[in-house]
């Protein structure tokens, strides 16, 4: 069994790396805890102040003459690229060159980071205080740190962390400062800059601010991209941004955004730097600071504006224990190496490289591929907490068991241990302390999440939120929303481990729905699911057969299926494993069906996302009340938006040209067909295998 797992690792690893460059940690598997150091523990030796005042002398990038922070804006404003754009805009808007140039420099001023060592030290001091209070440990992989240290000297480095908490980028800068690695410049959302004192500190700690909706502001886009590219070209500092674009409200990976990715890659495509190094960073939290906010936001209760006073109120949050967190720096990956054979760099030979141009299809595809790959690498590097496994199982328990009489603890514990084995078989990196008795690991995980579950008389109960003071009876709809909060929180924690199971789970669903054993039929259905759920479960465009292969191998590894050239057949073990995997995806399937059902309703012809969300929420609430729908996830705005994007991607929703409200026409027949395929009404033989045609 062990050797098989290794084979699989190799299989996955070899998709992206040549064997010679593979090291033992290539697939990101964390063998044991010893490879991690606890930053907080280090802090005990130096003291907070000592730490903040430590000598900071990182080895700089040696690919060119050093560049000072003051040189940057000048280089940007004087760039040929910006000159072209300024000229264009001046002509379009009938403004003078001077006016446009002035506007550009205002944008740049607003955007620029103002990295100052003093502020980094101040931030380090403050963070030391805060982090020690809320976390029992911040574990960082030493090997990743060392590799990063090396990498920043050789090429411009792009740090790509996943985004699960406001703390993410602070923690990364903190770690890099602590380990003498040049502190990155960070693309941060503009909202943060509006927080008065904090915004200033963040900016002086190396963040630069970007507006959320850049949309069609050509000048803004040009200044931003030239700013980012200049930093990369000059190797000024590592650049850090969230490839997912936003903080994930579901703790599940988001479909990557390509704009920033394109900006940091272009200097390589155009030969302005020899290489660019991508470093995916996986931050894993035992318990997320924002957990309560997450569910509220998903249910449409608006998030509080980021403000300094808001942050101070959050002090209540700081009284709690959030367990430990892990920062796993992935192996630095060479873009040059990754892009071999994917990009013809000669495509820039015939026009000035500074000329503003739409990227070619080849470039777009490559950027998208790399962005998706990075998200997958983040997932692979994530550490799965025992609680995430427990949450997955709790969600599969009958709702009544959780809310009313409770689930027997021993049952949960026993199933968690079985799931742990499965996760390990699938190559997951578990954060399961080896020296502590298993029962204790699980009970302390439950204790850490006391806001969500309560252990009573050997049974696990879901915490239903504070008792309402109000006397008057609430409407049943309100009850549904209230009940949904802990369910969605559980779902978020389940999502932390979803990527481990998702490919085998898609195959399990395919087996279940099609009742087929034929590989090609299963593959066709697998591709259908993979495509339909592309916004839910991130997979790499163009690699559906690899994903299918991986699913087969993993299910074979855990003994769930037998595979041959033509067939995939379920084994006895499979009868136990496959239902779990199907159930894992059931909330998604059920929720999607609800939304399809809404779109197929008689009165619905044209929808906008704005109308779609509340309408679907109403329908789902009704179905939950009537007992027809068993998952609360259909209430999640995230899932609703994903369905909307999926249908747009599949061209079953087509934008009305005349509409200014972003309205879409519903192709009911097509939606109905998707729904029918999903529930198995249309046999798999009639599915066309067009892997990735729509991706």
């Amino acid at each position, binding site marked *: 069994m062990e050797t098989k797992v290794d084979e699989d690792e190799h299989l996955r690893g070899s998709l992206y790396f040549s064997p*010679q460059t593979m090291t033992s940690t290539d697939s990101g598997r964390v063998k044991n805890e010893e490879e991690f150091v606890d930053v907080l523990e280090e802090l005990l030796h130096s003291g907070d102040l000592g730490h903040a005042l430590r000598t900071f002398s990182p080895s700089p990038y040696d*690919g*060119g*003459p050093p560049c000072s922070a003051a040189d940057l804006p000048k280089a940007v404003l004087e760039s040929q690229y910006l000159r072209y754009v300024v000229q264009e805009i001046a002509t379009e808007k009938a403004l003078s060159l001077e006016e446009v140039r002035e506007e550009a420099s205002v944008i740049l001023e607003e955007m620029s980071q103002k990295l100052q060592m003093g502020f980094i030290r101040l931030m380090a001091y403050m963070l030391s205080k805060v982090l020690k209070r809320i976390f029992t440990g911040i574990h960082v992989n030493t090997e990743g740190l060392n590799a990063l240290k090396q990498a920043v000297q050789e090429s411009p480095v792009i740090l790509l962390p996943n985004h699960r908490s406001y703390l993410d980028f602070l923690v990364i800068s903190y770690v890099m400062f602590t380990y003498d690695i040049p502190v990155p410049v960070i693309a941060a959302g503009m909202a943060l800059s509006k927080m008065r004192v904090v915004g200033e500190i963040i900016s002086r700690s190396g963040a630069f601010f970007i507006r959320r909706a850049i949309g069609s502001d050509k000048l803004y886009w040009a200044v931003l991209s030239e700013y980012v590219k200049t930093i990369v070209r000059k190797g000024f500092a590592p650049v850090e941004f969230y490839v997912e674009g936003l903080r994930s409200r579901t703790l599940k990976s988001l479909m990557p955004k390509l704009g920033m990715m394109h900006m940091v890659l272009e200097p390589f495509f155009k*030969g*302005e730097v*020899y*290489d660019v190094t991508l470093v995916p960073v996986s931050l894993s939290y035992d318990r997320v600071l924002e957990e309560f906010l997450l569910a509220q936001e998903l249910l449409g209760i608006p998030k509080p504006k980021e403000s300094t006073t808001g942050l101070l109120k959050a002090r209540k949050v700081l009284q709690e224990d959030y367990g430990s967190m892990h920062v796993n720096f992935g192996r630095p990956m060479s873009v040059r190496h990754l892009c071999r054979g994917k990009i*013809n*760099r*000669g495509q*820039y*030979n015939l026009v*000035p*490289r500074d000329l503003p141009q739409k990227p070619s299809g080849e470039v777009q595809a490559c950027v998208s591929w790399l962005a998706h790959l990075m998200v997958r690498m983040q997932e692979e590097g994530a550490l799965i907490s025992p609680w995430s496994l427990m949450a997955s199982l709790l969600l599969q328990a009958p709702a009544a068991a959780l809310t009313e009489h409770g689930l027997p603890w021993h049952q949960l514990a026993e199933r968690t241990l079985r799931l742990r084995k499965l996760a390990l078989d699938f190559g997951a990196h578990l954060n399961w302390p080896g020296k502590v008795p298993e029962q204790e690991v699980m009970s302390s995980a439950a204790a850490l999440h006391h806001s969500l579950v309560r252990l009573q008389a050997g049974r696990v109960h879901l915490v239903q939120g504070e008792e309402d003071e109000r006397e008057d009876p609430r409407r049943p709809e309100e009850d549904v929303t209230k009940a949904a909060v802990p369910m969605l929180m559980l779902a978020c924690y389940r999502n932390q481990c979803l990527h481990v199971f998702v490919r085998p789970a898609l195959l399990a669903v395919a087996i279940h729905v099609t009742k087929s054993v034929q590989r090609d039929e299963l593959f066709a259905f697998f591709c259908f699911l993979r495509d339909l759920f592309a916004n839910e479960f991130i997979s790499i465009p163009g690699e559906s057969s690899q994903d299918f292969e991986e699913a087969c191998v993993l299910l074979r590894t855990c003994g769930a299926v037998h595979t041959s050239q033509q067939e995939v057949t379920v084994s006895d073990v499979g009868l136990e494993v496959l239902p779990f995997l199907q159930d894992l995806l059931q909330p998604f399937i059920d929720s999607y069906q609800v939304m399809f059902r809404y779109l197929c309703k008689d009165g619905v012809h044209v929808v906008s996302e704005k109308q779609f969300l509340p309408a679907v929420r109403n329908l789902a609430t009704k179905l939950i009340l009537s007992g027809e729908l068993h998952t609360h996830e259909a209430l999640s705005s995230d899932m609703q938006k994903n369905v909307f994007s999926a249908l747009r991607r599949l061209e079953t929703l087509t934008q009305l040209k005349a509409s200014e409200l972003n309205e879409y026409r519903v192709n009911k027949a097509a939606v109905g067909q998707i729904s029918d395929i999903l529930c198995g009404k249309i046999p798999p033989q009639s599915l066309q295998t067009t892997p990735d045609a729509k991706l």
Partner: protein
Amino acid sequence: MASNSSGSGSQGRAPQRLRIIAGHLQRPVDVDATVSAAECKAQGGEADVASDGKSVPKRRQEIMKWNGWGYSDTKFLFNKKGQAEFTGKRYKLSGMIIPALKEWMEGTFGTNMQHKSLATPALTRTAVQPPTLNEAFVEELKSTGVPFSHDAEDRVFRAHGHCLHEIFALREGKVGRVPDLVVWPNCHNDVVKIVELACKHNVCLIPYGGGTSVSSALECPQEETRSIVSVDTSQMNRILWIDEKNLTAHMEAGIVGQDLERLLNESGYCTGHEPDSMEFSSLGGWVATRASGMKKNIYGNIEDLVIHVKMVTPQGVVEKSCQGPRMSTGPDIHHFIMGSEGTLGVVTEVTMKIRPMPEYQKYGSVVFPNFEQGVACLREVARQRCAPASIRLMDNEQFKFGHALKPQVSSMFTSFLEGLKKFYITKFKGFDPDCLCVATLLFEGNREKVLQHEKQVYDIAAKFGGLAAGEDNGQRGYMLTFVIAYLRDLGMDYYVIGESFETSVPWDRVLDICRNVKARIIRECKDKGVQFQPFSTCRVTQTYDAGACVYFYFAFNYRGLSDPVHMFEEVEHAAREEILANGGSLSHHHGVGKLRKAWMRETVSDVGMGMLKSVKDYVDPNNIFGNGNLL
């Protein structure tokens, strides 16, 4: 007597005439020849021209190495004291000790004086395949009286250029397919006869000029089954006339650069065409490869210099009917000939522009704090169109390499001055010795203008942080151009193999291409298991309005590698890929040959390929000129 065409028309300038006559007096055969340019002097096999002061004998092996660069009497070696020494008397550096070279080699390549990889001392005749002769061709050739040979040494000598793999094989005593016969035409008409016979008997012809190709252009195609005849033009080496009214000269195409310049100099003229290989490369070779000379900024490249070309093809002789300085008569047929690399015919005679010899020459050099500044300066010089005859910028590694090649200084005073200069630049001016780079300059013209020009260029340099660094450094830089080729042979004695290659690239990409190609070479070597980091350096050697010519040098220690040549070729291939990906050209002046053929189609497009192909198909339908270059 200067020419039969200008005849009586040039009495006006007596002193010059006298000089020309004086020149010719020393060279009776030339006088003879110029009288009857159309006639061949070689009927009945006269004495070798080498005895007339020409540089290249028929039997090249008499003066040149068979498995290395240049003259047999000249080479680098480590003497008994372990010091590097340059032997012979031909060059300024000859007979001198180069004290720093050993340490530089050890430091750069990790070489060890104990670990030698010496060449096979002499050619084993049995290693050479017996010639496949086309008897009928040979019989008829005899009747024409054109000298020929099927001696093994003669044939091996004409089977290679100076690519690394070619020389490496020879040093190991390995000989592949070689020409079956060597012929030495003495004039245009001889060539006409040879080509006619080749067509008649279906024999493959490969023109051979100076043998300095670095594109595998002289290699015999493996798949060639016909008898291969090497047409050695070295004996067609006369200046047929000089036209002082129009400042042109008409030469046979086999003349090598050094003879051409020397003979013209004797008449007070020069062509100014000075490729680095000019000691050995021939006029016909320049035309066939689109050569470029160091001083092109004043005199132009070969395409700017050529007025008229005569080429013998299987379809007959191609030439223009007049010598108009520019014509609008459809695509210029000269451009089918220039760069045809011996695939269409043999260039037999060329009329070239000449200039009066420059009154004054001055070398110079500038030190820059870093390569970026240096390139910016060259770009500005090009923008202002004030480039001196030559301006070259070496990167830091080459600067250090140049230092390692300084001969022993004779006086304490010189070495004191050197030390002072170094102190001034590094300590006082704050230049980092590991970043600084140097540009070498050559000015030509009348004295006053040269000094004016010099000031202009130094003023520009100063704006980019450049400091004038003396004439000596400049002059040594250019001298090294000629001896550097000898250095590869020394390296090969100590497990070091290397090569240079070139490209041309728009200005905005010069820095990027330099960085990326050098880095690619280092990366590829590392990936392929080369223990010691390779020597990977570059220089900008020519400036143009819209871009520059960049030269890369690449060498490494191959000890411990099982197939160094193959590995070397892979790295060179990768480097070329990198050049193309960075907007560089396939070649600036070395040509395509067989080495770079694979990239021709993407370089000139499908249609472009078809155009070239259709010319070949018309001119040489039976592929008589079957060296397989270019297409």
